[in-house]
Protein backbone atom coordinates (compact mmCIF):
# COMPACT_ATOMS: atom_id res chain seq x y z
CA UNK A 1 0.00 0.00 0.00
CA UNK A 2 1.24 3.45 -0.79
CA UNK A 3 1.22 6.03 1.98
CA UNK A 4 3.26 8.93 3.24
CA UNK A 5 5.23 9.02 6.45
CA UNK A 6 2.83 11.60 7.85
CA UNK A 7 -0.06 9.23 7.20
CA UNK A 8 1.72 6.42 9.01
CA UNK A 9 2.38 8.66 12.00
CA UNK A 10 -1.20 9.90 12.15
CA UNK A 11 -2.56 6.36 12.15
CA UNK A 12 0.02 5.13 14.66
CA UNK A 13 -0.74 7.97 17.11
CA UNK A 14 -4.46 7.60 16.54
CA UNK A 15 -4.52 4.07 17.92
CA UNK A 16 -3.36 5.44 21.30
CA UNK A 17 -6.20 7.93 21.53
CA UNK A 18 -9.30 5.76 21.41
CA UNK A 19 -10.25 6.11 25.06
CA UNK A 20 -9.78 9.87 25.36
CA UNK A 21 -12.78 12.07 26.16
CA UNK A 22 -11.12 15.40 25.40
CA UNK A 23 -7.99 15.87 23.32
CA UNK A 24 -6.39 19.28 22.90
CA UNK A 25 -3.96 20.13 20.14
CA UNK A 26 -1.70 23.15 20.19
CA UNK A 27 -0.12 25.25 17.52
CA UNK A 28 2.01 23.61 14.81
CA UNK A 29 0.65 20.11 15.42
CA UNK A 30 -1.06 18.88 12.22
CA UNK A 31 -0.12 15.23 12.77
CA UNK A 32 -1.63 15.09 16.28
CA UNK A 33 -4.70 16.85 14.89
CA UNK A 34 -5.06 14.19 12.22
CA UNK A 35 -4.60 11.44 14.80
CA UNK A 36 -7.31 12.88 17.02
CA UNK A 37 -9.81 13.17 14.16
CA UNK A 38 -8.99 9.60 13.13
CA UNK A 39 -9.55 8.30 16.66
CA UNK A 40 -12.88 10.09 16.85
CA UNK A 41 -14.01 8.69 13.50
CA UNK A 42 -12.94 5.17 14.25
CA UNK A 43 -13.52 4.67 17.93
CA UNK A 44 -15.33 7.34 19.84
CA UNK A 45 -17.81 9.69 18.22
CA UNK A 46 -18.45 11.57 21.45
CA UNK A 47 -14.78 12.52 21.84
CA UNK A 48 -14.22 16.25 22.14
CA UNK A 49 -11.34 17.67 20.12
CA UNK A 50 -9.96 21.14 20.75
CA UNK A 51 -7.78 22.46 17.97
CA UNK A 52 -6.31 25.70 19.22
CA UNK A 53 -5.33 26.85 15.77
CA UNK A 54 -8.92 26.46 14.57
CA UNK A 55 -11.99 28.57 15.07
CA UNK A 56 -14.42 25.75 14.31
CA UNK A 57 -12.76 23.20 16.56
CA UNK A 58 -12.06 25.53 19.45
CA UNK A 59 -14.97 25.85 21.86
CA UNK A 60 -13.16 27.81 24.53
CA UNK A 61 -14.89 31.07 25.35
CA UNK A 62 -12.88 32.25 28.34
CA UNK A 63 -9.85 33.43 26.41
CA UNK A 64 -6.60 31.68 25.75
CA UNK A 65 -6.06 30.88 29.41
CA UNK A 66 -8.97 28.44 29.31
CA UNK A 67 -6.82 25.69 27.75
CA UNK A 68 -4.46 25.82 30.70
CA UNK A 69 -7.25 26.11 33.25
CA UNK A 70 -9.18 23.21 31.73
CA UNK A 71 -6.00 21.12 31.62
CA UNK A 72 -5.18 21.93 35.23
CA UNK A 73 -8.77 20.97 36.16
CA UNK A 74 -8.12 17.53 34.69
CA UNK A 75 -10.60 18.06 31.87
CA UNK A 76 -8.10 17.39 29.05
CA UNK A 77 -6.95 13.81 28.68
CA UNK A 78 -4.33 14.10 25.97
CA UNK A 79 -1.96 16.76 24.66
CA UNK A 80 1.04 16.77 22.32
CA UNK A 81 4.42 18.40 22.73
CA UNK A 82 7.34 18.65 20.36
CA UNK A 83 10.93 19.37 21.24
CA UNK A 84 13.99 20.80 19.63
CA UNK A 85 15.70 18.26 21.86
CA UNK A 86 14.24 15.37 23.83
CA UNK A 87 16.42 13.41 26.19
CA UNK A 88 16.38 9.96 27.76
CA UNK A 89 14.60 11.27 30.85
CA UNK A 90 11.82 12.67 28.64
CA UNK A 91 12.93 16.22 29.36
CA UNK A 92 11.96 18.51 26.50
CA UNK A 93 13.74 21.58 25.19
CA UNK A 94 11.73 24.03 23.11
CA UNK A 95 14.11 26.96 23.60
CA UNK A 96 17.20 26.14 21.58
CA UNK A 97 20.60 24.53 21.54
CA UNK A 98 23.78 25.80 23.15
CA UNK A 99 24.18 27.84 26.26
CA UNK A 100 21.18 29.83 27.46
CA UNK A 101 20.23 32.64 27.04
CA UNK A 102 22.21 33.41 23.88
CA UNK A 103 21.63 29.98 22.42
CA UNK A 104 23.46 29.04 19.23
CA UNK A 105 20.19 28.10 17.61
CA UNK A 106 17.15 29.77 19.08
CA UNK A 107 13.64 28.36 18.66
CA UNK A 108 10.31 30.05 19.45
CA UNK A 109 10.02 29.25 23.16
CA UNK A 110 8.48 26.94 25.71
CA UNK A 111 4.82 27.81 24.99
CA UNK A 112 2.54 26.18 27.58
CA UNK A 113 4.72 23.11 28.07
CA UNK A 114 5.82 24.06 31.58
CA UNK A 115 2.27 23.56 32.81
CA UNK A 116 0.68 21.19 30.27
CA UNK A 117 3.38 18.54 30.65
CA UNK A 118 2.62 18.38 34.38
CA UNK A 119 -1.15 18.26 34.38
CA UNK A 120 -2.36 16.38 31.29
CA UNK A 121 -2.48 12.65 32.05
CA UNK A 122 -1.37 11.54 28.58
CA UNK A 123 1.20 13.74 26.92
CA UNK A 124 2.51 12.47 23.58
CA UNK A 125 5.90 13.75 22.48
CA UNK A 126 6.60 14.01 18.79
CA UNK A 127 9.64 14.89 16.72
CA UNK A 128 9.87 14.31 13.01
CA UNK A 129 13.64 14.51 12.76
CA UNK A 130 14.99 11.54 14.67
CA UNK A 131 18.74 12.04 14.94
CA UNK A 132 21.45 12.56 17.53
CA UNK A 133 20.91 16.31 17.54
CA UNK A 134 17.27 15.95 18.58
CA UNK A 135 17.35 12.69 20.59
CA UNK A 136 20.03 13.58 23.11
CA UNK A 137 21.35 12.22 26.34
CA UNK A 138 20.68 15.49 28.16
CA UNK A 139 18.84 18.50 26.80
CA UNK A 140 20.63 21.85 26.80
CA UNK A 141 17.60 23.52 28.41
CA UNK A 142 14.69 21.91 30.21
CA UNK A 143 11.52 23.67 29.06
CA UNK A 144 9.64 21.02 31.03
CA UNK A 145 11.00 17.95 32.79
CA UNK A 146 9.90 14.43 31.92
CA UNK A 147 9.55 13.36 35.53
CA UNK A 148 9.30 15.09 38.87
CA UNK A 149 10.17 14.15 42.44
CA UNK A 150 7.22 12.86 44.49
CA UNK A 151 6.64 16.11 46.38
CA UNK A 152 5.92 18.00 43.13
CA UNK A 153 2.26 18.18 42.12
CA UNK A 154 2.15 16.22 38.89
CA UNK A 155 -0.97 14.36 37.85
CA UNK A 156 0.26 14.26 34.24
CA UNK A 157 3.28 13.48 32.12
CA UNK A 158 4.62 11.68 29.06
CA UNK A 159 3.20 8.39 27.81
CA UNK A 160 4.87 8.03 24.40
CA UNK A 161 7.30 9.57 21.93
CA UNK A 162 6.73 9.25 18.22
CA UNK A 163 9.36 10.12 15.62
CA UNK A 164 9.81 9.63 11.90
CA UNK A 165 11.57 6.35 12.72
CA UNK A 166 9.78 4.68 15.61
CA UNK A 167 7.41 4.80 18.53
CA UNK A 168 8.66 4.78 22.12
CA UNK A 169 6.47 4.21 25.14
CA UNK A 170 7.34 5.66 28.54
CA UNK A 171 8.15 3.44 31.50
CA UNK A 172 7.09 5.63 34.42
CA UNK A 173 8.62 3.37 37.04
CA UNK A 174 12.04 3.24 35.42
CA UNK A 175 11.70 6.79 34.04
CA UNK A 176 12.97 5.61 30.67
CA UNK A 177 11.78 5.21 27.12
CA UNK A 178 11.00 1.76 25.76
CA UNK A 179 11.01 1.10 22.02
CA UNK A 180 7.49 0.06 21.18
CA UNK A 181 7.69 -0.37 17.44
CA UNK A 182 9.90 0.41 14.46
CA UNK A 183 8.31 2.14 11.50
CA UNK A 184 8.32 -0.12 8.43
CA UNK A 185 11.81 -0.37 6.91
CA UNK A 186 13.65 0.92 10.00
CA UNK A 187 16.02 -1.34 11.96
CA UNK A 188 16.85 -1.44 15.63
CA UNK A 189 20.47 -0.70 14.77
CA UNK A 190 19.42 2.40 12.92
CA UNK A 191 17.47 3.64 15.94
CA UNK A 192 20.44 3.00 18.20
CA UNK A 193 22.66 4.95 15.82
CA UNK A 194 20.24 7.86 15.62
CA UNK A 195 19.41 8.07 19.31
CA UNK A 196 21.63 9.85 21.81
CA UNK A 197 19.99 8.25 24.84
CA UNK A 198 19.71 4.71 26.17
CA UNK A 199 16.33 3.02 25.90
CA UNK A 200 14.77 -0.36 26.64
CA UNK A 201 13.70 -2.66 23.81
CA UNK A 202 12.79 -6.20 22.91
CA UNK A 203 15.37 -8.18 21.03
CA UNK A 204 13.11 -8.13 17.97
CA UNK A 205 10.88 -5.08 18.27
CA UNK A 206 7.46 -4.93 16.69
CA UNK A 207 6.87 -3.12 13.46
CA UNK A 208 4.49 -0.13 13.54
CA UNK A 209 1.20 -1.12 12.02
CA UNK A 210 0.66 0.31 8.57
CA UNK A 211 -2.43 2.39 7.82
CA UNK A 212 -5.41 0.38 6.68
CA UNK A 213 -7.28 1.15 3.50
CA UNK A 214 -10.17 2.43 5.58
CA UNK A 215 -7.86 4.73 7.50
CA UNK A 216 -6.28 6.15 4.38
CA UNK A 217 -9.68 6.83 2.89
CA UNK A 218 -10.81 8.66 6.00
CA UNK A 219 -7.55 10.54 6.19
CA UNK A 220 -7.48 11.68 2.59
CA UNK A 221 -11.14 12.56 2.70
CA UNK A 222 -12.89 14.27 5.59
CA UNK A 223 -9.89 14.40 7.90
CA UNK A 224 -7.68 16.14 5.35
CA UNK A 225 -10.36 18.83 5.06
CA UNK A 226 -10.50 19.30 8.83
CA UNK A 227 -6.72 19.59 9.00
CA UNK A 228 -6.66 22.07 6.14
CA UNK A 229 -8.78 24.57 8.03
CA UNK A 230 -6.00 25.03 10.61
CA UNK A 231 -2.90 23.89 8.77
CA UNK A 232 -3.31 24.84 5.13
CA UNK A 233 0.36 24.50 4.20
CA UNK A 234 0.64 21.05 5.77
CA UNK A 235 -2.58 19.89 4.13
CA UNK A 236 -1.36 21.06 0.74
CA UNK A 237 1.96 19.27 1.07
CA UNK A 238 0.58 16.06 2.50
CA UNK A 239 -2.82 15.64 0.90
CA UNK A 240 -2.44 18.01 -2.02
CA UNK A 241 -5.62 19.92 -1.10
Amino acid at each position, binding site marked *: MDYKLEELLICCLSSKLHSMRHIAIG*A*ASPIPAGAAFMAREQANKSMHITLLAS*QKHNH*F*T*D*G*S*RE*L*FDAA*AQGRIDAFFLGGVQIDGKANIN*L*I*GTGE*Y*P*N*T*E*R*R*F*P*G*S*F*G*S*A*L*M*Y*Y*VVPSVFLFRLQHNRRSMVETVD*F*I*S*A*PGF*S*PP*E*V*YRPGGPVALITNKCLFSVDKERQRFRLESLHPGVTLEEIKDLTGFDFDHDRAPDITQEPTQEQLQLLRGIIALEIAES*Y*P*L*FAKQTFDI
Partner: protein
Amino acid sequence: MSLTQCTITEIAAEVANGSLLGVPADYSGVPMAFTRELIRQGKQDLDLFCLPQSTLQADMLIGAGCVRSVETAAITLGEYGLAPCFTRFVQEGQLQIKDSTCPALHAALQATERAVPFSPLRGLIGSDLVKHRSDWQIISNPFSDDEDPIILIPAVSPDVSVIHAQKADRNGNVWIGRRKEVATLIHASKKNFMTVEEIVDVDFYDNEVLAAGVLPGFYIDAIAIAENGAWPLALGNRYATDETHMKDYALRAKTEEGFQAYLSENLKV
Protein backbone atom coordinates in the same frame (compact mmCIF):
# COMPACT_ATOMS: atom_id res chain seq x y z
CA MET B 1 -19.44 56.96 28.98
CA SER B 2 -18.44 58.33 25.65
CA LEU B 3 -16.08 57.55 22.83
CA THR B 4 -12.70 59.27 22.77
CA GLN B 5 -11.45 59.00 19.23
CA CYS B 6 -7.83 59.54 18.23
CA THR B 7 -5.34 58.58 15.56
CA ILE B 8 -2.71 55.86 15.40
CA THR B 9 -0.07 58.57 15.47
CA GLU B 10 -1.47 59.82 18.76
CA ILE B 11 -1.57 56.34 20.24
CA ALA B 12 2.05 55.70 19.31
CA ALA B 13 2.97 59.06 20.83
CA GLU B 14 1.51 57.83 24.14
CA VAL B 15 4.07 55.03 24.23
CA ALA B 16 7.10 56.53 25.93
CA ASN B 17 10.54 55.10 25.35
CA GLY B 18 11.19 52.50 28.02
CA SER B 19 7.52 51.56 28.39
CA LEU B 20 6.32 48.08 29.16
CA LEU B 21 4.06 47.40 26.18
CA GLY B 22 1.33 44.73 26.24
CA VAL B 23 1.44 42.60 23.10
CA PRO B 24 -1.36 40.24 22.02
CA ALA B 25 -1.08 36.81 20.41
CA ASP B 26 -1.79 36.38 16.70
CA TYR B 27 -5.37 35.28 17.41
CA SER B 28 -6.22 38.25 19.66
CA GLY B 29 -6.12 41.12 17.15
CA VAL B 30 -2.58 42.33 16.51
CA PRO B 31 -2.35 46.10 15.97
CA MET B 32 0.06 46.01 13.03
CA ALA B 33 -0.75 49.48 11.69
CA PHE B 34 0.07 50.85 15.15
CA THR B 35 3.21 48.71 15.25
CA ARG B 36 4.49 50.23 12.02
CA GLU B 37 3.77 53.68 13.46
CA LEU B 38 5.82 52.83 16.57
CA ILE B 39 8.74 52.02 14.28
CA ARG B 40 8.21 55.21 12.28
CA GLN B 41 8.35 57.21 15.51
CA GLY B 42 11.67 55.52 16.36
CA LYS B 43 10.72 54.17 19.77
CA GLN B 44 13.56 52.93 21.95
CA ASP B 45 14.03 50.55 24.84
CA LEU B 46 10.53 49.10 24.78
CA ASP B 47 9.92 46.14 27.03
CA LEU B 48 7.37 43.77 25.51
CA PHE B 49 5.01 41.67 27.56
CA CYS B 50 3.38 39.08 25.31
CA LEU B 51 0.09 37.42 26.16
CA PRO B 52 1.24 34.78 25.84
CA GLN B 53 3.28 34.92 22.63
CA SER B 54 3.88 37.15 19.66
CA THR B 55 4.44 36.89 15.97
CA LEU B 56 5.21 39.56 13.36
CA GLN B 57 4.58 42.40 15.82
CA ALA B 58 7.41 41.57 18.20
CA ASP B 59 9.65 40.43 15.37
CA MET B 60 9.40 43.73 13.49
CA LEU B 61 9.82 45.83 16.63
CA ILE B 62 12.90 43.81 17.55
CA GLY B 63 14.35 44.03 14.04
CA ALA B 64 13.80 47.78 13.98
CA GLY B 65 15.76 48.21 17.19
CA CYS B 66 12.82 49.42 19.28
CA VAL B 67 13.02 46.69 21.89
CA ARG B 68 15.10 46.28 25.02
CA SER B 69 13.51 43.12 26.44
CA VAL B 70 10.77 40.60 25.73
CA GLU B 71 8.80 38.52 28.19
CA THR B 72 7.04 35.76 26.31
CA ALA B 73 6.19 32.08 25.96
CA ALA B 74 7.26 32.11 22.32
CA ILE B 75 7.89 34.28 19.30
CA THR B 76 7.21 32.60 15.98
CA LEU B 77 5.72 33.18 12.58
CA GLY B 78 3.78 29.93 12.96
CA GLU B 79 3.43 28.08 9.68
CA TYR B 80 5.77 30.66 8.13
CA GLY B 81 8.67 29.54 10.28
CA LEU B 82 10.91 31.00 12.94
CA ALA B 83 10.64 34.69 13.73
CA PRO B 84 13.76 35.84 11.89
CA CYS B 85 14.68 39.06 13.72
CA PHE B 86 13.92 37.59 17.14
CA THR B 87 16.06 34.54 16.36
CA ARG B 88 18.94 36.64 15.05
CA PHE B 89 18.87 39.13 17.93
CA VAL B 90 18.76 36.42 20.61
CA GLN B 91 21.52 34.40 19.00
CA GLU B 92 23.66 37.52 18.75
CA GLY B 93 22.96 38.49 22.35
CA GLN B 94 21.30 41.78 21.38
CA LEU B 95 18.01 41.14 23.16
CA GLN B 96 17.15 40.56 26.78
CA ILE B 97 14.77 37.62 26.82
CA LYS B 98 12.59 36.68 29.77
CA ASP B 99 11.42 33.23 28.74
CA SER B 100 8.13 32.27 30.35
CA THR B 101 5.29 29.84 29.73
CA CYS B 102 1.75 30.71 28.62
CA PRO B 103 -0.08 30.16 31.93
CA ALA B 104 2.54 32.17 33.85
CA LEU B 105 1.95 35.16 31.60
CA HIS B 106 -1.79 34.86 32.13
CA ALA B 107 -1.24 34.43 35.87
CA ALA B 108 0.88 37.59 36.10
CA LEU B 109 -1.90 39.65 34.52
CA GLN B 110 -4.64 37.93 36.50
CA ALA B 111 -2.82 38.99 39.66
CA THR B 112 -2.90 42.61 38.51
CA GLU B 113 -6.50 42.18 37.43
CA ARG B 114 -7.37 41.38 41.04
CA ALA B 115 -4.77 43.82 42.40
CA VAL B 116 -2.97 41.14 44.36
CA PRO B 117 0.82 40.94 44.38
CA PHE B 118 1.12 37.42 42.96
CA SER B 119 -0.68 34.37 41.56
CA PRO B 120 0.23 30.81 42.48
CA LEU B 121 0.77 28.44 39.56
CA ARG B 122 1.26 24.69 39.25
CA GLY B 123 3.82 23.12 36.95
CA LEU B 124 7.17 24.85 36.36
CA ILE B 125 9.11 23.26 39.19
CA GLY B 126 12.10 21.52 37.63
CA SER B 127 11.90 23.59 34.45
CA ASP B 128 15.02 25.61 33.65
CA LEU B 129 12.72 28.57 33.07
CA VAL B 130 12.63 28.99 36.83
CA LYS B 131 16.43 29.15 37.13
CA HIS B 132 16.50 32.27 35.01
CA ARG B 133 13.55 34.02 36.61
CA SER B 134 14.71 35.59 39.84
CA ASP B 135 11.36 37.42 39.97
CA TRP B 136 9.49 34.13 40.55
CA GLN B 137 9.43 32.52 43.97
CA ILE B 138 8.85 28.99 45.17
CA ILE B 139 7.06 28.68 48.49
CA SER B 140 5.74 25.77 50.42
CA ASN B 141 1.95 25.56 50.04
CA PRO B 142 0.74 26.83 53.42
CA PHE B 143 -2.45 24.77 53.15
CA SER B 144 -0.62 21.45 52.89
CA ASP B 145 0.71 19.36 55.74
CA ASP B 146 3.08 17.62 53.35
CA GLU B 147 5.95 19.13 51.44
CA ASP B 148 4.28 20.86 48.50
CA PRO B 149 6.36 23.42 46.63
CA ILE B 150 4.43 25.87 44.47
CA ILE B 151 5.50 28.78 42.27
CA LEU B 152 4.30 32.33 42.85
CA ILE B 153 4.25 34.56 39.78
CA PRO B 154 4.41 38.27 40.63
CA ALA B 155 1.82 40.67 39.24
CA VAL B 156 2.72 42.54 36.05
CA SER B 157 1.09 45.73 34.87
CA PRO B 158 1.95 46.91 31.34
CA ASP B 159 2.30 50.69 31.01
CA VAL B 160 0.34 50.62 27.78
CA SER B 161 -1.54 47.95 25.87
CA VAL B 162 -2.84 48.31 22.35
CA ILE B 163 -5.12 45.81 20.61
CA HIS B 164 -6.79 45.74 17.23
CA ALA B 165 -10.45 44.71 17.05
CA GLN B 166 -13.25 44.62 14.52
CA LYS B 167 -15.69 47.16 15.89
CA ALA B 168 -16.27 49.82 18.48
CA ASP B 169 -19.68 51.33 19.14
CA ARG B 170 -20.53 55.02 19.37
CA ASN B 171 -19.97 54.96 23.13
CA GLY B 172 -16.49 53.52 22.96
CA ASN B 173 -17.29 49.91 23.79
CA VAL B 174 -15.37 47.34 21.76
CA TRP B 175 -16.58 43.96 20.56
CA ILE B 176 -13.91 41.33 21.24
CA GLY B 177 -16.11 38.23 21.08
CA ARG B 178 -14.54 35.12 22.54
CA ARG B 179 -11.10 36.71 22.78
CA LYS B 180 -11.36 37.27 26.51
CA GLU B 181 -7.57 37.31 26.96
CA VAL B 182 -7.81 40.80 25.48
CA ALA B 183 -9.91 41.77 28.48
CA THR B 184 -7.35 40.30 30.88
CA LEU B 185 -4.56 42.33 29.26
CA ILE B 186 -6.62 45.51 29.24
CA HIS B 187 -7.79 45.08 32.85
CA ALA B 188 -4.17 44.72 33.94
CA SER B 189 -2.69 47.65 32.01
CA LYS B 190 -2.26 51.23 33.16
CA LYS B 191 -3.27 52.74 29.81
CA ASN B 192 -5.20 51.10 27.01
CA PHE B 193 -5.79 51.98 23.40
CA MET B 194 -7.65 50.10 20.73
CA THR B 195 -7.48 50.31 16.98
CA VAL B 196 -10.59 49.11 15.16
CA GLU B 197 -11.72 48.41 11.63
CA GLU B 198 -14.77 50.61 12.14
CA ILE B 199 -16.85 52.53 14.65
CA VAL B 200 -20.53 51.69 14.28
CA ASP B 201 -23.38 53.99 15.26
CA VAL B 202 -25.05 51.69 17.77
CA ASP B 203 -24.71 50.85 21.46
CA PHE B 204 -23.64 47.22 21.78
CA TYR B 205 -25.40 47.00 25.12
CA ASP B 206 -28.77 47.44 23.44
CA ASN B 207 -28.40 43.79 22.43
CA GLU B 208 -27.59 41.23 25.13
CA VAL B 209 -26.20 38.81 22.56
CA LEU B 210 -23.67 41.37 21.37
CA ALA B 211 -23.03 42.54 24.93
CA ALA B 212 -21.66 39.13 25.89
CA GLY B 213 -18.61 39.80 23.70
CA VAL B 214 -17.98 43.43 24.66
CA LEU B 215 -15.04 45.02 26.38
CA PRO B 216 -16.55 47.97 28.29
CA GLY B 217 -15.40 51.38 27.15
CA PHE B 218 -14.41 52.58 30.59
CA TYR B 219 -11.18 50.57 30.39
CA ILE B 220 -10.10 52.23 27.15
CA ASP B 221 -8.39 55.61 26.98
CA ALA B 222 -8.97 56.21 23.28
CA ILE B 223 -9.79 54.43 20.03
CA ALA B 224 -8.38 54.93 16.54
CA ILE B 225 -9.79 53.67 13.27
CA ALA B 226 -7.32 51.53 11.32
CA GLU B 227 -8.80 49.76 8.33
CA ASN B 228 -7.00 46.49 7.72
CA GLY B 229 -5.21 47.34 10.93
CA ALA B 230 -3.99 43.78 11.53
CA TRP B 231 -2.61 43.35 8.00
CA PRO B 232 -0.69 41.27 6.99
CA LEU B 233 -2.03 39.17 9.86
CA ALA B 234 -5.55 37.82 10.08
CA LEU B 235 -8.40 39.40 12.04
CA GLY B 236 -10.98 36.94 13.38
CA ASN B 237 -13.19 35.83 10.54
CA ARG B 238 -13.03 39.26 8.91
CA TYR B 239 -9.89 38.73 6.87
CA ALA B 240 -7.22 36.06 6.53
CA THR B 241 -3.46 36.24 6.76
CA ASP B 242 -1.76 37.66 3.68
CA GLU B 243 0.20 34.50 2.95
CA THR B 244 2.31 35.90 0.15
CA HIS B 245 3.35 38.82 2.28
CA MET B 246 4.21 36.60 5.25
CA LYS B 247 6.30 34.22 3.14
CA ASP B 248 8.09 37.21 1.69
CA TYR B 249 8.73 38.66 5.14
CA ALA B 250 9.95 35.33 6.56
CA LEU B 251 12.47 35.12 3.76
CA ARG B 252 13.68 38.71 3.59
CA ALA B 253 13.90 39.36 7.32
CA LYS B 254 16.43 36.56 7.70
CA THR B 255 19.18 39.11 7.08
CA GLU B 256 19.58 42.58 8.51
CA GLU B 257 19.76 44.03 5.00
CA GLY B 258 16.69 42.18 3.84
CA PHE B 259 14.75 43.33 6.88
CA GLN B 260 15.80 46.98 6.40
CA ALA B 261 14.73 46.85 2.77
CA TYR B 262 11.39 45.33 3.85
CA LEU B 263 10.94 48.08 6.41
CA SER B 264 11.68 50.95 4.07
CA GLU B 265 9.11 49.57 1.62
CA ASN B 266 6.47 48.94 4.24
CA LEU B 267 6.74 51.96 6.48
CA LYS B 268 5.57 54.36 3.82
CA VAL B 269 2.41 56.09 4.90
